[in-house]
C-alpha cells in the first residue's frame, strides 16, 4: 500500500492522511470557541427584546424572528469557526429543540383556556347536580342581565357518560380480551389469526363517526329506522374500543414468558386453567392499564354519539329507551347551540365546565393507567 507522504503540521487539529488522498475533498472538524452557541443565543434574545420592546412588534412575531435568528446565527458562527459538519450538527440541534417547544405551546394554551373558562363553573355543586330540564333562555338572560345565579347543569350528562361508557366497556373488555387470548394462546399463526390481526388493524382506522353510523344503521335494521338510544351509542363506542383492547392485550399476553405456561402444563394443569390462573394474573397490570387507556380514549368521543344517541336535556337512566346525554355531547351542544342566542355566555360557560370535567376524567384515567402499570407489574428479578 503506497500512500503519499505528507508534512506533519502542528496545531490542535490532527493532520490526517485521508485529507491528502487524491479525489477526496475533506470536510474538516476544527475546535470551536467554547460557549459559542450561548453567545449566539444571547444575541438572539437581545434581538427579540429589541423587536418587541423597542420596535413594538408583537411578542409572538418577535419570538419567532428571534428563534430564526438563532438558528441561522448558530449555523454561520460554527461554519466559520469549526467547519460545516459542526455547523450542521448545531443547527439540527436547534431545530429539534425548537420542535419540542412548538408542540408545548398549543397544549399550554388549551389547558389554560379550559381551566380559565370552565374551572369555576365545573366546581360549582349546582352545576354538578342539576340537569337542563326546564331551563330556558329566560334564565340565561336573567343571569347575564340581572346577576341571577346560573341555572342548569350537567348532572344528566355525567350520568349519561358513566352509563354509556360503562356499557361500552362491558361489551368491549370481554370481547377484546378473549380475542387476544385466542390470538396468543390458541391461534398462533393460523389463517384465522392472521386475518383477525389484519382486521383489527383495519378497525383501529375506522373514523369515529363511521362507527356511529354503523351503530345507527344496525339498530335501524334491528329495531326500526331512527332508533337512537344509549345502547346504540355504547355499541358505537365498542367498535372503537375493541381494537385498542385487542392490540394492547395481545401484547401484554405475549410478554408473559413461555416458561410459565410450560411449567404449568408440565404439572398437568389444563390449558384453560393455565391461561386463567397463570397467564392472566401475570399480565394483569398491563391488561388493566391498557383497558384504562381504552376507556380514556372513548370517554370523550362525541361524533358517534351525535349520530347514534341523539340529544336530550333531561336525565335518562334507561339506556334502552331514547336519547341520553353525555359530557362530550353536552359540551358540543352548549357551545354551538346556546340556549339563548342573544346571551351566549352562560351556555358557553357550561360547555367549558363540561370540558373541564372531561379533561380531568381523561387525565385521571391516563395517570391511573400509568400507576397500575408501574405498581402492579409483577416484580421481576433485577
Amino acid at each position, binding site marked *: 500500500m503506497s500512500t503519499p507522504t505528507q508534512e506533519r503540521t502542528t496545531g490542535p487539529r490532527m493532520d490526517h492522511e485521508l485529507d491528502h488522498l487524491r479525489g477526496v475533498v475533506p470536510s474538516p472538524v476544527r475546535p470551536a470557541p467554547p460557549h459559542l452557541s450561548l453567545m449566539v443565543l444571547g444575541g438572539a434574545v437581545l434581538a427579540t427584546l429589541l423587536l418587541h420592546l423597542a420596535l413594538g412588534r408583537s411578542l409572538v412575531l418577535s419570538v419567532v424572528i428571534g428563534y430564526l435568528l438563532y438558528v441561522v446565527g448558530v449555523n454561520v458562527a460554527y461554519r466559520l469557526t469549526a467547519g460545516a459538519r459542526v455547523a450542521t450538527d448545531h443547527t439540527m440541534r436547534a431545530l429539534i429543540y425548537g420542535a419540542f417547544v412548538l408542540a408545548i405551546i398549543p397544549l399550554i394554551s388549551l389547558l389554560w*383556556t379550559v381551566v380559565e373558562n370552565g374551572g369555576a363553573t365545573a366546581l360549582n355543586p349546582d352545576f354538578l347536580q342539576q340537569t337542563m330540564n326546564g331551563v330556558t333562555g329566560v334564565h340565561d338572560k336573567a343571569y347575564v342581565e340581572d346577576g341571577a345565579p346560573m341555572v342548569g347543569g350537567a348532572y344528566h350528562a355525567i350520568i349519561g357518560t358513566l352509563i354509556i361508557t360503562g356499557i361500552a366497556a362491558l361489551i368491549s373488555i370481554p370481547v377484546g380480551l378473549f380475542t387476544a387470548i385466542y390470538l396468543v394462546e390458541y391461534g398462533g399463526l393460523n389463517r384465522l389469526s392472521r386475518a383477525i390481526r389484519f382486521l383489527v388493524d383495519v378497525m383501529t382506522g375506522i*373514523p369515529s363517526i363511521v362507527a356511529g353510523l354503523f351503530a345507527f*344503521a344496525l339498530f335501524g335494521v334491528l329495531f326500526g329506522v331512527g332508533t337512537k338510544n344509549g345502547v346504540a351509542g355504547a355499541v358505537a363506542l365498542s367498535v372503537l374500543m375493541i381494537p385498542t383492547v385487542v392490540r394492547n392485550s395481545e401484547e401484554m399476553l405475549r410478554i408473559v414468558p413461555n416458561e410459565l405456561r410450560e411449567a404449568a402444563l408440565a404439572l398437568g394443569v389444563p390449558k384453560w386453567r393455565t391461561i386463567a390462573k397463570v397467564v392472566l394474573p401475570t399480565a394483569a397490570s398491563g391488561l388493566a392499564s391498557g383497558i384504562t387507556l381504552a376507556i380514556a380514549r372513548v370517554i370523550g368521543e362525541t*361524533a358517534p354519539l351525535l349520530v347514534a344517541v*341523539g340529544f336530550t336535556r333531561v336525565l335518562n337512566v334507561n339506556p334502552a329507551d331514547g336519547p341520553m346525554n353525555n359530557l362530550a355531547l353536552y359540551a*358540543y351542544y352548549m357551545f354551538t347551540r346556546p340556549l339563548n342566542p342573544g346571551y351566549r355566555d352562560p351556555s358557553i360557560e357550561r360547555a367549558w365546565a363540561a370540558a373541564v370535567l372531561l379533561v380531568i376524567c381523561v387525565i385521571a384515567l*391516563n395517570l391511573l393507567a400509568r400507576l397500575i402499570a408501574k405498581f402492579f407489574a409483577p416484580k421481576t428479578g433485577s
Partner: protein
Amino acid sequence: MSETITRAPRRSGPARRVGDVVFSGTSRASALLILVILAGVAIFLTVEALPVFTSGSADITGGEGFFSYVWPLVAGTVIASIIAMVVATPIAVGIALFVSHYASRRIGQTIGFVVDLLAAVPSVVFGMWGMQVFAPKLVPFFGWLEDNLGFLPFFADGSATGRTLLTAALVLAVMILPIITSVSREVFVQTPRLHEEAALALGATKWEMIRTAVIPFGTPGVIGGTMLGLGRALGETMAVAIILSPGPFTWNLIGTGNKTIPSEIALNFPEAAGLRLSELIAAGLVLFALTLAVNLIARWIVDRRSEFSGAN
C-alpha cells in the same frame, strides 16, 4: 398368548375438558366476532346508503347527483388532512428525536407524558379551543398571507373570524402530532446501539450519527406513523365541525367555506331523515373507503421496507 385390545385412536390427544372447550370456544367466538363486526359495518352502511344510488340525481342535495354532492366534501377532507400531516410530521419527528437521543431520561419521560396529554384531550375540546382562541389569533396571520401571497388562490381573501379550512388543518396537525411522535419515538429508541456506536467510532458528529444509523432504521416506522396520523386526520369530526363555518368548496384556504365529510355528517345528521339520511351515510361510506385505503397503503409501505430496514 397376549390379547391386545386395540382401540380406535382418539381424534385428539387428551380428553377434552369442559373448561377447555368453553374457554377456547369463547376465545374463538370473540375472534370471529371481529370479523362479523367489520363485515357488519360494511354491509349495514351499504344497505342504508343504497337509496342514494337508486334515486334520481335531482333528489340529492344540490340537485346534481351524489358525485357532485360528495366531491367537495372529499376535497375538503383530503386537503385539510394533508396539510395537517405535512405540518405535523417534521415537528413530530423532531420531538421524537429529541426524546430518543437528545434529552435525559427524566426529561424524556416528562415529554412523553406531555405528548400523551395532548393525545388524551377529547376532540370536542380541541374544537372549542380552536374556535374560541386559536382562530382569532390566526386572523392577523391570514391578513399577512392575503397581503403578501394573495396572488395565490389559496390565500386570496382572509377571513375575519379565522374559521377556515387552514385553521382546522392546523388544529388537526396538533391533534395528530401525538400519534406520529409516539410511533416515531418508539422506533428511534429501538435503533441498535451497535450501529450508533459504529457511526460514532467512524468519526461522526451527533447529527451525522442520527442521519446514518437512526433515521434509516426508523424510516419505515415514521412513515407508518405519518400515515396513521393521516388516517386520524381524515376521520376527525368534532374539531372540524366546530371550527369550520360551512360553505361551498373553495380553494381559498384562509376564507370561510369548505366542508369535510365528517363535519358535514355531524352537523346535519341529527335533523336528517329519509333520503338525506342515506346521503350522509353514503358519504360516511366514502370516508370509510378513504381511511381504509390510507391504512392499507401504510401497512404495505411498512411491510415492504422491513426487509432492508435492519429489523432482522
